[in-house]
């Protein structure tokens, strides 16, 4: 039981970072960024380049690759979304689909379609004998890495969002962009910073997914649906709530394997989402919006 709960939390962390990235861009620009899956893929491959092609240790590859993923997202904003600012959310959504296609095919062109893996030293799993009374707990090396990178990224973003000048600017623009402008907040700078954080989070998410399994050009698409589901579950305009949604989805999926075959676990997570949407379509922490 303990093992299942832990696996669920780790699975949730895999989805939490991209879900947070999605909710961040939605809260400020009010559009669903379908390119998030491709940003995740591209980020994972950028780190692969440093780690495998250049032979850097995974830690250094991540330290360089994650900010680089943020810069790529800023460049995409500058090239694609900035000229479309002020258009409807549907226009931006369609543009993001185009961005996704370009990114994914760039990865396929540069790295091929064969699944790849990071160069990480194999290590023995850690066992906790004292927890055997609760069914035992075994944590492998990748799970430690996922937990460490995932949790530290979430803490950094939470602190940035809650206590920094930039975080206040992001929350202000998300709340009321026109009022933020008359209070002296630069919309362009704030949006660029948001894209940097969003791109860095997607890249970190790509790294974690690549550590958990393998890298392939479709990896982002495979995670897009759970990422959207997690963000909607928490409340898509509440960035930190997306983390809650991701963790709930992860634990619910793993717990379901106690009663149904494991290959049906994704269905259970979506069942939870469907049930919630029936009673609270704006998510657990989101706010109902009235459109007149």
């Amino acid at each position: 039981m303990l093992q299942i709960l832990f696996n669920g939390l780790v699975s949730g962390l895999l989805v939490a970072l991209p879900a947070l990235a999605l909710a961040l861009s939605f809260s400020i620009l009010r559009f669903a960024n379908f390119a998030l899956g491709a940003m995740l893929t591209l980020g994972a491959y950028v780190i692969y380049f440093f780690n495998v092609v250049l032979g850097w240790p995974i830690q250094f590859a991540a330290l360089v690759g994650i900010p680089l993923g943020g810069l790529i997202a800023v460049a995409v904003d500058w090239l694609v979304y900035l000229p479309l600012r002020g258009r409807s959310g549907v226009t931006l959504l369609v543009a993001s689909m185009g961005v996704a296609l370009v990114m994914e095919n760039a990865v396929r062109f540069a790295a091929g379609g064969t699944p790849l893996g990071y160069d990480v030293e194999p290590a023995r799993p850690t066992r906790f004998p004292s927890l055997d009374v609760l069914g035992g707990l075994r944590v492998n090396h990748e799970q430690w890495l996922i937990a460490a990178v995932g949790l530290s990224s979430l803490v950094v973003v939470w602190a940035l969002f809650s206590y920094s000048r930039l975080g206040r600017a992001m929350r202000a623009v998300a709340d009321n962009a026109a009022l933020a402008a008359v209070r002296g907040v630069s919309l362009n700078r704030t949006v660029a910073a948001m894209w940097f954080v969003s791109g860095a989070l997607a890249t970190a998410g790509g790294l974690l997914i690549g550590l958990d399994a393998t890298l392939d050009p479709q990896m982002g698409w495979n995670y897009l649906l759970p990422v959207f589901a997690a963000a909607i579950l928490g409340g898509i305009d509440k960035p930190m709530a997306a983390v809650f949604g991701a963790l709930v989805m992860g634990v619910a999926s793993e717990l379901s394997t106690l009663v149904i075959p494991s290959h049906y676990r994704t269905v259970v997570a979506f069942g939870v989402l469907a049930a919630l949407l029936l009673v609270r379509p704006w998510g657990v922490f989101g706010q109902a919006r009235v459109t007149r």
Partner: protein
Amino acid sequence: MSAALSLRRVHAGYAGKDILHGVDIELEQGGALTVVGPNGSGKSTLLKAVVGLLTLSRGSIALDGKPVEALNALARSRLGLAYVPQERNVFANLTVGDNLRLGWEFLHPRMEASAWRDRLDYVLQLFPEIRDRLSVSAGLLSGGQRQMVAIASALMQTPSLLVLDEPSAGLSPRNAALLFESIARTRATGITLLMIEQNVKLGLAVADRGLVLVAGQVRLLAPAHELLTDDRLHRLYLGTQPGVPVTH
């Protein structure tokens, strides 16, 4: 000395249709002008044009003699203009303290922390009712307190021109009176004030001059104390006969 705000033959509106038709306004440094007029006369449109949320179709606007009609709201705020909209005028998801900090920090990025604390103390003296609400989410405040936070946030910008859009809208008479006591204290600091207000009596009480806007045109401009008893105000604004008290 150039005027704090100068509008020359301003035309502006929405979707190619002008709401303002050649508005001229001259507001001297330290002056206070209250704009009144019936619903649909273009008062809010006038303020949006002044603060840079609406592009002029013709005419010019100058702040302290500097032409600003080509500048957006952000650039005008950097020139010393602070605006309080009628609705959605606070960041509801931020605390009162964060609302006030936000009014300060983006226009004074390099000033010391002591300057920020001094300014906060100064503004809270003008709005003592919100002093113990700094950690409360602004969305949870009463209407009157929310207006006070909105004006206080604007004052944190250390503006030279404060622009208020119907501050008493939606407030009970008691809360409106309390709010205008704070506006009167703010006015006494010597700040230049441009305000539109439906409550004519309250609005003109804190102004030097009153302006009646009807159908997007200036129809009357007079000292505030004279305007309250001017028969033409009754005809233009209220559509009533002289002798009816102006209390809204």
